[in-house]
């Protein structure tokens, strides 16, 4: 395996890692604010992809402009799911029960998509999807660049939101010390709803990127959520920075293994790494033991 191939794999990994970072950030944000593991995040990405598909194929709105519709749509969906289901999970066993609840939501989403679109594979198309730009000896597919650019822009936007706005401070306060947030007048309940909305809204962009680079059908959510979970746990549940770092790391490892060893084994290494890291460090790479104050 040549150095070029290796470097290409690393570059690919970083680019796709950026998109996964965005989706994983959404997942870990939901966990941080709600103590809920959103198993439906994968299905929502697929839903986002189908929304883009619907707009591009049946409404003539091409992929990128379509995001203007799909992102707010997913935002509203996220808030609705928080309001209707997530907040009704009992406090006592919250995180474990949330897995079941969100799994159920994922199943419903899959069912709706199957009913509407059947089980055939589709893919998102646009003029730039199959083209690459050749830079410094590397092929950089346009779609990856665009997706990566979007992901970075959104992550920057998320960062700005969290650190420069009043709402963002409310979210961080709820994340760090719920009681204190309550005591200074933060409307914790409303903050949570909006935070979940944001966490889900990012899946619209993930759907665009995923759908343009992979053939997908309603069943594709499982593969996605399994990777996202691995990333989020590796990065430490509730740590957005950790999720981002882990995403890039895992995808680079994935792509390098695919090139160096075999493409079929690459995803396996993903999970095996997760299992190994957790055996040694149960709080994940970047998580702190019992970090969050209540």
């Amino acid at each position: 395996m040549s150095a070029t191939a290796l470097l290409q794999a690393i570059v690919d990994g970083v680019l796709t890692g950026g998109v996964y970072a965005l989706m994983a950030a959404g997942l870990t944000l939901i966990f941080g604010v709600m103590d809920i593991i959103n198993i439906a995040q994968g299905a929502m990405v697929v839903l986002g992809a189908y929304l883009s598909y619907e707009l591009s194929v049946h409404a003539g709105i091409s992929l990128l402009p379509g995001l203007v519709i799909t992102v707010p749509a997913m935002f509203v969906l996220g808030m609705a799911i928080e309001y209707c289901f997530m907040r009704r999970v009992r406090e006592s066993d919250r995180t474990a029960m949330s897995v079941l609840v969100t799994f159920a939501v994922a199943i419903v989403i899959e069912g709706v998509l199957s009913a509407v679109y059947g089980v055939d594979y589709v893919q998102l198309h646009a003029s730039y999807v199959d083209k690459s730009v050749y830079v410094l000896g590397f092929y950089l597919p346009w779609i990856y660049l665009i997706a990566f650019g979007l992901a970075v822009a959104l992550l920057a936007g998320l960062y700005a939101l969290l650190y420069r706005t009043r709402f963002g401070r409310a979210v961080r306060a709820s994340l760090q010390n719920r009681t204190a947030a309550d005591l200074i007048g933060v409307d914790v309940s409303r903050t949570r709803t909006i935070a979940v909305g944001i966490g889900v809204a990012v899946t619209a962009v993930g759907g665009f990127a995923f759908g343009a680079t992979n053939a997908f059908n309603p069943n594709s959510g499982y593969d996605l959520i399994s990777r996202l979970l691995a990333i989020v746990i590796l990065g430490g549940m509730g740590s957005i920075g950790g999720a981002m770092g882990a995403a890039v790391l895992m995808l680079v490892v994935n792509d390098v293994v695919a090139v160096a060893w075999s493409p079929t084994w690459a995803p396996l290494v993903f999970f095996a790494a997760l299992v190994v890291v957790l055996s040694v460090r149960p709080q994940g790479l970047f998580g702190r033991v019992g970090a969050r104050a209540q």
Partner: protein
Amino acid sequence: MSALLEVDGVSKAFGGVKALSSCGLEVHEGKINGLIGPNGSGKTTLFNVITGYERVQEGRVVFAGREITNARPDRVFGLGIGRTFQLTRLFSRLTVLENMLVATQRAEGWLRSVVRRAGSASERRRAMELLEFVGIARLAAEPAGTLSYGQRKLLELASLLVADPSVLLLDEPAGGVNPTLIGVLADRIAELNRAGKTFLVVEHNMEFVMGLCHRVTVLDQGTALVSGAPEEVRRNPAVLDAYLGGEDSEPAAVLDERRPEPRPAAVGMGLRLRPRPAPARRDDLLELRGVYAGYGGGDILKDVSIKVPAGEITCVVGPNGAGKSTMLAAISGLLRPRQGQVSFQGELITGLPPGDVLALGIALVPQAHSLFGEMTVRENVEMGAFTVRDQALVRRRLAAVEELYPIVRERAGERAASLSGGQQRLVEFARCLMLEPKLIILDEPSMGLDPQTRAVVFEMIELMRDQGRTVLLVEQNARAGLKLSSQGIVLENGTVRLTGSGREVLEHPEIGALYLGGGVSVGLQATS
């Protein structure tokens, strides 16, 4: 008299807080050993260290000559040391009898434990005997979750006895239990002791401890202060100091005096004082009438009526479990009183949610540290004015607060979690002032702080009063708290036992008895 269980030089810190500091303890065989000390002195942490729930890097725990430092809890139990918890822990969904059968007398091979029925006939007999012994045998088939509080305590004790431990560590066995039952408990413990069992009992109920224990050790600030026979310990002035708060390093502050010069400690923090405005009218800002409140199980507060005059500092003191925090929760909206009324500025606020209470001008600084650790000091203080939309107003208030608390300006960009406990407290004060509250409620602000920082904290509390605010203070450090208050209230077992001016309450003969049991008179020393 040999030490069956010995703790030597153990230190344990949680983040910046030192819970145990080179702590040593001897538990003498065949005796009932008592462990007392003020809130936050490290008693439960010590239990956790002995029984393996907390690991330590420094120090040793030795049992019957063998070192058991950092052994896992199941192994510690297997060696013969059993413990109860401060808040009873039972297996609520199992029946009382099943609770008794979880522990085994002898180690059992795993295959047998799967195949055979839980508890052989002889084990069940023994379990029933033990249940008889504590008096709850008739409840054997009931789910443990349905037991009353006192019955739970008895079950917790009984379930330890199944394995016939040689040492029993009891964490507040009499806590929250009615007087009849306390007597029963004491009898049972004495009986078990006569049968040869060694006890180490943590308790706040001084009559219980003094009446039952052969030896008592006093823990303060994570280290053992004094050990000896109960009467000796009770009369030791250092012990009294530990409970009521030591004398400050500077001359005692006299109430109602103007202090135009900055005080030594204040200079160290770079504080400037404004002259005190004319005293406000002595209206009652806050009033509780006939309040009964509790959490699920029963009432912790029983018929509590207090008045908090405007523009003054009122201090509430009382032994542990008296209901002080419950009272604060009832005022600030975290707990809804079952009965009774809370009124603020003449308007009823009983049962309002915390957000509304805050909007009315009541700010609470809770006991546990409540800063947002990952945010900067400045951000934390700004968050205090979260509900204020006008940014210019927020900036003005921040500037005003920075005048009073220069630490906010000095450490503005640092992560709040990196500050010491005392500094965090001051930032918390600064934060609560951002909304310019009329009433400030402080829950044990000086807990866990060293004397120097405590002095500063108390000065800042006086400053709040000087600025025309009303302060309701709950203090473990009764001396310091009462010294600066114009009104003192003593709460015990959920009822108001004493009210009066700060000094009156402090000098009242009963106060020593309330804390230490027995009629010791306590008062201001020669400095006043």
